């Protein structure tokens, strides 16, 4: 039990866990048998966990997706990849560290893996703009994807961003163009592209590395056209309406799967990926290998056509 950061809705569980600690200490100090009490508490914890984690509201999932202890791209790369060879820079302007990527091996597969990387500590967070990419980040991502295309390696793209970086420099170097070019060019890739939203899937900044043959969501991640707060501020004129906005936007994996906007959900350890990095990593690794297998033997033409058709049909209209 390594809860360091407890979310508001997790308090009932946390309080019971503290009682367990206290009771254990009491038993140790007084040399009495507390097993029966511990057992009872554990039952209560199991009930409380079920109660909380099986009925997560969309807003609670957003909170889990943003959990400061949630595993990030590099945590997954460390656990699921061997021989990771990081590559850097966009060859034009800079090296945006909000996006990391490089060659890697997952199981017996060689791949190109790219992903948005938030920072773990204040300094790291600042350097990586908390996973919000600059134009050069999108250009770096495209350079690596084109390289994968040349090497005929599948591409794994991990999304975890609140959105592209909103800044003067971002606009001066044409963030809109950088994202648009990625959207256009990702359709031309001759290799399988697997996209996984591991945390936050924030609007165009997420989609800019998100045109895949498969788009999967981790169970407690979200994918949305706008943050709940942003939506609440605009449509409700009240940032406090974020819970209603999160509900209305249908941004959870379950809702998006039902709407056929994504292809699947990767289950997380109880309480979220932050509770058990290794288990979360295993789940992702299994999903990636399963997905890649489905593309074995497919021609470049098929891969491109399938990717195009997948996005071509997205939309709801009446004529």
């Amino acid at each position, binding site marked *: 039990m390594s809860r360091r950061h407890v979310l508001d809705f997790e308090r009932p569980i946390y309080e019971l866990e503290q009682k367990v600690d206290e009771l254990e200490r009491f038993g140790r100090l007084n040399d009495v048998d507390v097993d029966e009490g511990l057992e009872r508490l554990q039952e209560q914890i199991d009930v409380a966990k079920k109660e909380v984690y099986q009925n997560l509201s969309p807003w609670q999932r957003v909170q889990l997706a943003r959990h400061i202890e949630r595993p990030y791209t590099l945590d997954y790369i460390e656990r699921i990849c061997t021989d990771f060879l990081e590559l850097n820079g966009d060859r034009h302007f800079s090296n945006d560290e909000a996006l990391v990527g490089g060659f890697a091996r997952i199981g017996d597969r060689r791949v190109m893996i790219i992903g948005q990387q938030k920072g773990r500590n204040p300094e790291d967070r600042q350097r990586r703009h908390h996973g919000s990419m600059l134009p050069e980040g999108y250009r770096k991502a495209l350079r690596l994807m084109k390289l994968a295309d040349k090497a005929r390696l599948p591409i794994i793209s991990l999304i975890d961003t609140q*959105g*592209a*970086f*909103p*800044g*003067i420099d*971002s*606009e*001066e*170097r*044409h*963030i*809109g*163009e950088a*994202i*648009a*070019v990625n*959207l*256009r*060019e990702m*359709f*031309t890739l001759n290799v399988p592209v697997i996209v996984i939203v591991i945390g936050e899937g*924030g*609007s*165009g*900044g997420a*989609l800019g590395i*998100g*045109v895949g043959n498969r788009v999967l969501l981790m169970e407690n991640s979200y994918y*949305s*056209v*706008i*943050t709940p*707060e*942003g*939506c609440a*501020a*605009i*449509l*409700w*004129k009240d940032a406090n*309406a974020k819970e*209603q*906005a999160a509900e*209305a*936007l*249908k*941004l959870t994996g379950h809702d*998006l799967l039902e*709407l056929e*906007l994504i292809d699947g959900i990767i289950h997380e350890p109880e309480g979220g990926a932050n509770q058990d990095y290794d288990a979360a990593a295993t789940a992702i690794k299994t999903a990636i290998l399963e997905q890649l297998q489905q593309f074995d033997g497919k021609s470049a033409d098929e891969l491109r056509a399938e990717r*195009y058709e997948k*996005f*071509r049909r*997205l*939309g*709801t*209209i*009446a*004529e």
Partner: protein
Amino acid sequence: MAPLFKKPKYSTIKGVTTKKEIPEGLWLKCESCNEVVHKDDLESNLNVCPKCDFHNPITWQERVELLTDSGSFKPQDVDMSSVDPLKFTGTASYKDKIAENQTKSGIRDAVVCGAATLDERPFALGVMEFRFLGASMGSVVGEKVTRLAELATDRRVPLVLVTASGGARMYEGLYSLMQMAKTSGAVGRHHGAGLPYIVIMSHPTTGGVTASFASLGDIIMAEPGALIGFAGPRVIKQTTQATLPEGFQTAEFLKSKGFIDRIVARKNLRQELSLLLGYLS
């Protein structure tokens, strides 16, 4: 992209509005220069402020008339309409918003698309209509732009889009976002077929439209003073605490930063487009 425009009182979206204290609605106050302008003077000047040259939005009909041979425009998908895929409920229902905007504008959604000619050269034309929900991009805008690009690809003609947009159609959630990918893919196929694509950016072109098909033109033109960007200036200010440079996110600013080929006054737009189509057809 997402936190785009807080629509009310958005300070840099300029425009000419009727002020109550000015009688009979014949005199309008330009929000760009604050000068009072007679309605007739504005209308006879293609809705460009005669005092400060600000290019106010014009209707899709005016735009079509400006850029095509008379009677040549054959609109397609005119009845295509938005549905409410998320059953969006908040302070207002999406269904009501759609109905209200359809009545107000006389069109079914925020873009009008079709085949046309200019000086007898055929091309595919799409015009975004800012008056319809701020020309936000939902499924209908995405689908119509995509079909227009497909039409242009099939007929092997140039694609011309006159853009304007306040951003995403939040009411359609992720469907709205996915239109960015869909339109970019379709424009990409047109591009892959070796066909030319011209974008004319009008005021304001922002958000998801900027981060998709609007930024992919072989030629990008803009009307003078148009606000063009991805994130809204307010969001940028809030996030970075920076002082925004003079003229930030205007067409002129972006031309100096290498994004825009030409800034074209509305009165010259027809001639320039014709010239371009001549070079590119």
